[in-house]
């Protein structure tokens, strides 16, 4: 007797809804060993996601300024996934306008523009690590 994929899934459902922590079924045809709550790890660990490359430093653009990350952390353009971005290209910002969040170990830091002008380019990806000093936005300053 062999087990189909559906059989295995059915057994897992039964164990999930039972009080059992561990189950071993051994027949001449197969051995099934299930442990509830355990995570399996393949030898050598989980497949590694490619190491994110550093964001290349954008060349300066005449007549514009950059808003740079005042700290290392995870860059977010929105207050939460359901919110619109704090700022977008074409938006006017004041020095104290919040332009993004940088999260450092669950601590959300509201980052202000530090300059008055118009956002002309977004230079960092939301949800990605930004380094200290990394350019986040390009701004055409007022009166430039």
């Amino acid at each position: 007797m062999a087990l189909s994929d559906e059989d295995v899934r059915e057994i897992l459902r039964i164990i999930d809804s039972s009080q059992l922590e561990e189950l071993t079924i051994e027949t001449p045809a197969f051995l099934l060993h299930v442990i509830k709550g355990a995570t399996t790890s393949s030898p050598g660990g989980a497949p590694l996601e490619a190491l994110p490359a550093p964001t290349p430093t954008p060349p300066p653009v005449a007549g514009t300024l950059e808003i740079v990350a005042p700290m290392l952390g995870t860059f977010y353009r929105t207050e939460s996934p359901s919110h619109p971005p704090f700022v977008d290209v074409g938006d006017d910002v004041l020095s104290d306008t919040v332009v993004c969040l940088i999260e450092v170990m669950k601590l959300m830091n509201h980052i202000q523009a530090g300059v008055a002008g118009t956002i002309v380019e977004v230079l960092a990806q939301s949800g990605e690590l930004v380094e200290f000093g990394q350019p986040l936005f390009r701004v055409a300053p007022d009166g430039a």
Partner: protein
Amino acid sequence: MTIARLFIANRGEIAVRIVRTCRELGIESVVGVSTVDRDSLAAELADRAVVLGPAHASESYLRVDTNVAAALGTGCDAIHPGYGFLAESPALASAATAAGLRFVGPPAQVIATAGDKLKARALAQDAGLPVVPGREIVTLAQAEAFAGEHGYPVLLKAAAGGGGRGIKLAGDLEQLRLGHALARAEAGAAFGDERLYIERLIATARHIEVQIAADDHGAVIEFGERDCSTQRRYQKLVEEAPAPALAPGLRTELLAAGVTFARAIGYRNLGTVEFVVDVAAGSFHFLECNCRIQVEHPVTEAVYGLDLVALQLAIADGEPLAFAQADVAAHGHALECRLVAEDPARDFAPSPGRVTRFAAPTLPGLRVDTHCRDGTLIPPFYDSLMAKLIAHAPDRDGALATMGQALALLEVEGVATNRELLARIIAHPRFVAGDVSTTWLAEALR
């Protein structure tokens, strides 16, 4: 090995050293750097460098949250703190572990206990290790009673303090009266706590430390001792393994004491148990336990033919030690000289600047651990260590000869260094004879 990508929370030669082992093991490495270390050798050799913050260590290398965030943000699964900076910070160990990273070092609780000198001392005493005679006192009468019991000289310091500040040395009763009054007033003013700690000073002491390794499965072994007696202002300059002119019986006792302490504190990973050895009395006392890889670890690597960083990673990965005590043996003798950017003409003041030329010779038995090359900037913000020269030979004379040659052939330009001092030390008859204590160098320089 399940560690696939390692975050290195350090800089300088030790960051380079750790990257090299990662490369040999096929582990990816990410180094966190400050803005002034962006173009450092470690940043270049690592698979990736991330800028943690500004030059001042308090805003970059010493920030627990930033280092952990950088490790997570670059997909690392472990964090190596090196030495110095956050290496003995229980906060980093616990934050890393809480974030699901493997911390390459002992658990936070062990670091905290070892870092509390009085607790560590009590633990050593309970484990049957000899400790330097000392106790807490308040009154002058108590201080006098202690000196009467143990003799002079004695050291007095604030029990609540630390870091070697405000230590008073008393060689006789008169100095004790004066020192006690001063120390008590200072302790009260600085800490709001007049309790003092009085300790017997061991005048001709050697500083000898035991390298230990402990896995998660209860195994503890030692990799011999290192002699680090050649110091200036508590800064080690030359280290060696094994310790010269150490009676075999005393060595055996020291090594056993190191293992005993490691077991008593529940040690994990690589660590060092330090002792002061009273040469005249032929005895030793427990000093402290360092929960990190030591600067001078290469002398142990040389004589044992080991990669201690690889061992740290294996232990952090949960692997059992691959060898038993009976399987490890030392071969030959190794010396290490620390080349620092310090100006002998200005009383060894740090001499940061641009290294215009750096070339170490290639000699049989010589290893050079460095972050320097032509054009390297030695920033004024961090320690002044430029390179470690490690000479290994079948015997001590051979190691001394190799080191002498290495120091003579080393080319360094652009910053003042202690090279001449190192050359003089290793050629000095007292050093050659293996007859130095921790106060020798200061006396010899006078």
